[in-house]
């Protein structure tokens, strides 16, 4: 069992590293800037080591049982106390290990990636310490979220990861697209966070029920303990509020629009924050409070249906995208949909298992994309092709990640996706049959876009990279870059190889059907105190067949080119446009809601009201204040006899007032 101070250090070490980078290294001499990378890696690696110790300590038992600390109290002795603490149970331990582990690997990759970017940007390292500071602080905030004992504490860290996500998407803030994407991510997730906050306040409104049980309505263990006594109505509204926050953070329909744009950040950021960790925070939140969701069939079905729909909907948009990072972003949205689907059919352990596997293989795919970009300096797959010839390691890494994502036996994605399908097949809720078929459809599309991505990027003839991109379409900073036909340096390929090992093995090793040497069967499920999922050969066969069909279709269209979709004519072109425009949802949000309803309607009306009415009143008050003050200042003559008179008159007035009163 980990001592409590060590548990706090899991958050503290990356925090310290981040503060060193931004507080000590950045303002100092340039010679120290390259140190920032090592400081960041060291802090995160320390957190990872402690997280592994925590996983080890949590094995075979539940909550580590640290008492929360009193932060402040309101309303005297029998009032309400706010607490802070570390909630270290198997769920948070495994999540902390994934977050810190992936973060450490990505920061190692960044040592190479950001060096190059920084050199090219300014001929200096000025962005370098800032980058590692943000990454370390993000990691600290994410670990704080994972280990939070109460919902307010969790919400604070939830907003902090949002802040660092904003800062990192807009890392190259001089690019208008990056600045706009950062803003969009911040605002769209904020809509969900509003629901989250309402959910918290709704629980607080019911503090009477909690107080009757002697519990605190903000503490997560207390909520789980009280959930069965709350009644389905209370549980539904609280759970739906929390789910709104989760859907915003995890980019679920209809709040998914920010994630593809978030790819404007540096690629390692996309891989850590917008694929492996932060976007999974929503899944984690629902899993964390699963006991509350379980009490409401309506909330569970909502989660399942939103997840299932998003899985298909986002995968469809991934079919037609040409930007490699956008394809991966749509894929992330779709895979997060899978996880919510699993939660919604009552299998939190399965959802966490998919989160665990997805963190590795999606991170790997993003790092591969970054590695390719390192060579060809574009993310547009139409200008790639044949890259495997000079990037064999990157190609293998991408292939492993892709096969895993597509759910091909025996890679990790196969196992967790199969568990999800099995859970949906065996689910008893009303939504379960619907979402099973949605998940199967998404599996087909996933295999298709994955193989399309691999074929367009690595196979065929090289189509020129950045040099072939029309000049006006290039990102300004990359206008002067050229293609370098060489493999990325070892500091970048090594992390990819490490992740590839996990992408291959984490599926059957962590939750295998039979005992594998020291690892017992279904270790992961039992670790989370869940029942082992059923393995159905029928479901596994169906999902494999569907995935192979998707892969085959992609191979025919983009590999051998035996079929061409253009033959379908107008309907095909219409479908392509629909997908390329992301079902016109972004346009709907921006043009109709933001521009017409909010800007021209509500904001203009508010503006008029503010100018005429509010400012008018304020101006009047201000006028009165200035001139009234001036009048009173006139009395202040500086003559001491006037002052004395004022004292006497004042006393006299009060006396007369009371004399008249009787």
């Amino acid at each position: 069992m980990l001592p409590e101070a060590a548990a706090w250090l899991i958050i503290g070490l990356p925090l310290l590293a981040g503060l060193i980078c931004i507080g000590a290294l950045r303002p100092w001499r340039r010679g120290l800037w390259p140190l920032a990378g090592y400081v960041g890696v060291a802090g995160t690696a320390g957190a990872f080591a402690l997280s592994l110790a925590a996983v080890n300590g949590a094995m075979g038992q539940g909550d580590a049982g640290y008492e929360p600390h009193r932060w402040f109290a309101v309303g005297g002795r029998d009032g309400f106390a706010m607490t802070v603490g570390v909630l270290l149970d198997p769920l948070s331990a495994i999540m902390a290990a994934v977050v810190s582990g992936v973060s450490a690997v990505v920061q190692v990759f960044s040592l190479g990636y950001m060096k190059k970017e920084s050199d090219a940007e300014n001929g200096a390292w000025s962005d370098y310490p800032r980058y590692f500071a943000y990454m370390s602080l993000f990691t600290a905030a994410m670990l704080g979220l994972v280990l939070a004992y109460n919902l307010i504490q969790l919400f604070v860290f939830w907003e902090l990861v949002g802040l660092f996500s904003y800062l990192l998407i807009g890392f190259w803030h001089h690019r208008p697209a990056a600045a706009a994407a950062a803003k969009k991510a911040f605002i769209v997730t904020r809509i969900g966070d509003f629901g989250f906050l309402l959910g918290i306040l709704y629980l607080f409104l019911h503090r009477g029920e909690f107080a009757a049980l002697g519990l605190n309505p903000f503490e997560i263990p207390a909520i789980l303990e009280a959930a069965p006594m709350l009644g389905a109505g209370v549980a539904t509204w609280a759970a739906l509020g929390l789910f709104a926050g989760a859907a915003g953070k995890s980019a679920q329909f209809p709040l998914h629009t920010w994630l593809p744009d978030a790819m404007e950040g540096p690629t390692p950021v996309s891989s850590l924050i917008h694929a492996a960790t932060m976007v999974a925070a929503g899944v984690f939140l629902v899993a964390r409070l699963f006991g509350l969701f379980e009490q409401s069939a309506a909330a569970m079905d909502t989660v399942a249906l939103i997840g299932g729909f998003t899985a298909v909907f986002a995968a469809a948009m991934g079919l037609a995208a040409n930007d490699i990072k956008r394809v991966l972003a749509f894929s992330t949205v779709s895979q997060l949909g899978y996880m919510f689907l699993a939660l919604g059919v009552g299998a939190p352990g399965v959802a966490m298992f998919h989160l665990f596997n997805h963190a590795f293989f999606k991170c790997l795919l993003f790092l591969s994309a970054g590695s390719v970009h390192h060579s060809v300096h574009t993310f547009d797959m139409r200008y790639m092709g044949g890259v495997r010839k000079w990037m064999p390691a990157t190609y293998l890494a991408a292939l492993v990640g892709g096969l895993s994502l597509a759910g091909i036996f025996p890679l990790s994605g196969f196992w967790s996706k199969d568990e999800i399908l099995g859970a949906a097949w065996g689910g008893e809720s009303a939504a379960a049959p619907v979402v099973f078929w949605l998940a199967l459809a998404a599996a087909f599309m996933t295999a298709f876009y994955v193989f399309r991505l691999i074929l367009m990027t690595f196979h065929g003839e090289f189509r020129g990279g950045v040099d072939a991109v029309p000049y006006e379409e290039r990102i300004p900073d990359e206008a002067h870059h050229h293609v370098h036909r060489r493999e990325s340096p070892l500091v970048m390929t090594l992390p990819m190889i490490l992740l590839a090992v996990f992408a291959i093995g984490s599926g059957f090793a962590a939750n295998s059907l039979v005992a594998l040497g020291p690892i017992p069967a279904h270790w992961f499920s039992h670790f989370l105190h869940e029942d082992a999922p059923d393995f159905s050969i029928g479901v596994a066969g169906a999902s494999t067949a569907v995935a192979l069909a998707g892969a085959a279709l992609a191979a025919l269209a983009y590999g051998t080119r035996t079929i061409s979709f253009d033959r379908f004519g107008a309907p095909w072109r219409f479908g392509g446009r629909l997908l390329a425009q992301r079902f016109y949802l972004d346009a709907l949000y921006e043009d109709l809601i933001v521009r017409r309803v909010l800007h021209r309607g509500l904001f203009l009306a508010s503006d008029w009201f503010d100018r005429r009415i509010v400012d008018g009143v304020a101006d009047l008050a201000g006028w009165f204040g200035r001139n009234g003050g001036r009048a009173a200042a006139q009395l202040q003559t500086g003559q001491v006899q006037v002052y004395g008179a004022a004292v006497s008159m004042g006393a006299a007035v009060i006396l007369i007032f009371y004399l008249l009163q009787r």
Partner: protein
Amino acid sequence: MGITGRDIFLIAPELALAALAAAVVLLDLAPAFRRNERLGQAAAIGGLIVPVAFGAALWVDVHANGAQYGFNGALVVDKFALYVKFLVAAAAGLTLLASGGYARRFRPYQAEFAGLLLFSASGLMLLAAAADLITIYVALELATLPVVAMAAFAKTRAESLEAGVKYLLLSAASSAFLLYGFAFLYGASGTMQVVAPEGGGPTIAQALAQSGGGAPFGGFAVMAAAILAVAGFGFKLSIVPFHMWTPDVYEGAPTPVGAFLATASKAAAFAVVLRVFMEAFGGASADWGGLFAALAAVTMTLGNLVAIAQRNVKRLLGYSAVAHAGYLLIGVAAASQGGALGASSVLFYLGAYAAMTLAAFFAAMTLAERVGGERIEDLAGAGRRFPFPALVLAVALIGLTGIPPTAGFMGKLFLFNAAVNAGLVWLAVVGAVNSAVSAYYYVGVIRTMHLRDAPDVPPSPDADAAPRTPLAAKTALGVTALAVVALGFWPGGLLAAARAAAESLLR
């Protein structure tokens, strides 16, 4: 019934402080102290440990045995008195710490300045522990007369002399009101005892309860006594319409005097008002509660409105002191409803207000020396040129506005909460509106410092020649600013002490 050793122990903090004051003046004759004036400053500040230690010993004693009476009932030592004594000692110590550099212009009389300040502080301490009307008056004069000399200390400057004369004349006038009121009170009740030990004769409140009521306050003599006492104390509290000396003296007197008047002097004055009205006039609390509520509304509104028109930083702080006297009166009015809530909110706010006002005065003092002027527009660009004092001033002004997370926010929260609990919702609303109005001029200063550029004219040569801010002054700046923020996050400790102190007023 002579003086016993126990009596000496009970008055030990005041005695030690007076002895320290004398010692500081005498030590200045030694050659070493002549050569290095910092030694005198260090002795004055370090010596404060003795009265504080006696105070701590008394707190332990009082905590165990309850309120103690000395000098045949002339002196009462309870947690209320001790809380105020600690506050006075802290304000005096910090003022000495911050004003070492400023006092250099009084050379070779800087030790006398420190001595006067300590004498006045001993009077303020005694005021908090005074149990009868005579002791109150004596303590008040002991606290006031050194301030007259301190206000006029920069004797080559006409404004300083003017401030001294004004303070002398008006304090004499207000003393006359106070004595007149005390005479009425003695006439009506036949006793001087505001509070008394068990079996120590009747107190004023007990004596008044015997005589029948009728007019407001339960009799014309008592009514006259109460109103004359309000007028007399009103001078010290700077409440409208007895406030008019405040901006003149704050502006004209040396800056440390303003800081001392606004914090230590105001704290002791509020303490004696709470004690006299809650104890002696306890039977007429509905009447004086209404009076103080009305005075609170008038005082904070007028103080804030006139502050808007000010151009001089010290004068602005003077009107700010008037406005804050109004906020504090909210708590006094709430205290009329019984219970410890009103008095404890006043005591907490006195501590919070001391931290904010000391920080503001110290920062204004440092900045005035740096930029070479005391007008608000002289501070333009100070945020960039002198970031540390400008930051401290910003923190202090944010606190005075009452914006979280600062001591001022917490203090106002407790005051308004006390008002609402006492059924004075309208007064809490007036207070909140006034806080919003006050943001106008407080934030204006911050904006001038941090958002406006320094004037193009080159800074006056003596600004550059000004001696560097001493470390002691920087420490005082840092400590007070830190206290403003710390009390915003962790008000618990001071609030618990204030509540314990307020509870000792209820008996």
